[in-house]
């Protein structure tokens, strides 16, 4: 055990805030630089991805003739993917890239992971808001029916992404295999995640298997909030919350174990 002399909770929170601020500033400069758009790339990058998907799916007519407008379907779908996938993907290199900074006693593995999670969630959220406002303004996309449910679905996806990032980020401190496995897993999960289909479109026999994946529930919630009764949705917030809770606890436990193994 290593302890400072009787730190109070308030004192510790102060350190935590300082460290996260320092890491955020550092990460923004190293990742986006000071040239051209700079920090705006945080939002511009996921926007470009989403715009590409919107174009492709519109061209392919992916909404299968349902009542859902294709632009809104693509924006809600791909933004959901960004939420859970990007946090976890950026977490795979977080520990290795920031290792020299762990030399400072107060900079811990949890801090570098939280920094990346915050940036990814911020970028994806910014991209979702900007694109939604733009398309609503252009009249290509309706305004959401139930904004609160949209926000709730969004927060659930953020939680899922964050818990996955903690688990995978800490996992890479134990073995590089975690990073190698995550990328194919993310690739294969994308088509299953509910981004490119509504659960209701699937054969009944398949629905219950797809609904084992927590992010499918979040995407369905988001779309129910967005489209209201235009399409039947299938989701269980309790199931998704339970999954996120288990992943979060496992992630935090692994982060703690990983912190004890840091070697230079």
């Amino acid at each position, binding site marked *: *055990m*290593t*302890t*400072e*002399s009787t730190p109070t909770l308030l004192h510790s929170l*102060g*350190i935590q805030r*300082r*460290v996260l*601020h*320092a890491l955020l*500033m*550092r990460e923004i*400069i*190293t990742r986006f*630089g000071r040239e051209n758009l700079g920090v705006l790339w945080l939002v511009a990058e996921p926007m470009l991805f989403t715009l590409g998907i919107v174009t492709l799916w519109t061209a392919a007519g992916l909404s299968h003739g349902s009542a859902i407008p294709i632009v809104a379907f693509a924006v809600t779908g791909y933004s959901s993917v960004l939420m859970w996938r990007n946090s976890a993907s950026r977490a795979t290199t977080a520990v290795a890239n920031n290792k*020299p*900074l*762990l*030399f*400072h*006693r*107060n*900079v811990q593995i949890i801090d570098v992971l939280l920094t990346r999670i915050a940036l990814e969630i911020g970028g994806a959220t910014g991209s979702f808001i900007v694109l939604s406002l733009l398309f609503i303004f252009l009249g290509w996309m309706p305004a959401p029916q139930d904004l609160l449910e949209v926000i709730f679905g969004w927060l659930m996806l953020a939680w899922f992404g964050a818990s996955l990032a903690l688990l995978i980020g800490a996992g890479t401190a134990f073995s590089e295999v975690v990073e190698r496995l995550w990328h194919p897993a993310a690739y294969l999960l994308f088509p299953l995640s509910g981004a490119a289909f509504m659960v209701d479109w699937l054969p009944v026999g398949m629905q219950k298997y797809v609904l084992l994946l927590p992010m499918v529930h979040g995407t369905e919630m988001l779309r129910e909030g967005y489209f209201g009764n235009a399409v039947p949705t299938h989701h269980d917030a309790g199931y998704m919350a339970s999954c996120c809770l288990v992943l979060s606890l496992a992630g935090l436990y692994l982060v703690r174990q990983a*912190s*004890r193994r*840091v*070697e*230079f």
Partner: protein
Amino acid sequence: MLAIEHVSKVYATRQGPRKVLRDISFRLERGENLGILGRNGAGKSTLIRLISGAERPTSGRILRGMRVSWPLAFGGAFQAHLTGLDNLKFVCRVYGVDYRPLVPFVEEFTELGIYFREPVLHYSNGMLTRLAFALSMAIEFDCFLIDEAMVVGDVRFHERCHVELFHKRKDRAFILVTHDADVIKLYCQNACVLHEGRLLPFPSVDAAYEFYQATMSSCPDPVESP
């Protein structure tokens, strides 16, 4: 007060666990200093990393009742794409210090000129060492941890480090680890020898010096650590 209590460190290697430090205990008060002598691979840098908190001990505990620095002049903590100034800002934010009043000191001490505002990846080794040392001095600590890395650099840099550390900050505590017995003799009031994973105390610096010189000539070199 800094207290090291029964600290051991085991590293996993392909040949199985390797005990680098065995049951190390000592205390240090503000204003005191300790020189630790050890050969290459004796575990000196490991001990410094444990005391600084960069790594955790396998067993035992470390109580920090005063503000302990990170290992001094450690250049590895730099982000290559950040400028010298960015790195100063980062360190200041982490330790809760306003960076602005420190810019003149760091600029003057490092003699980096325009390179202070250029990415660190364009720096030479000498420039990196000067920046690392200046950043260590920018934050006020009660106890400085000095690895022998500090001893690199030219004579002029060496003298300026000496002034900053041993004159301007002589009221602080420090722990100096090195394989160079003469450095310890020059700066330290107390000395220990790190030998085969154990920290051996001596009543005087001279006694430690003699023991160290004796082990140097009698024992074969231990395995080099990376």
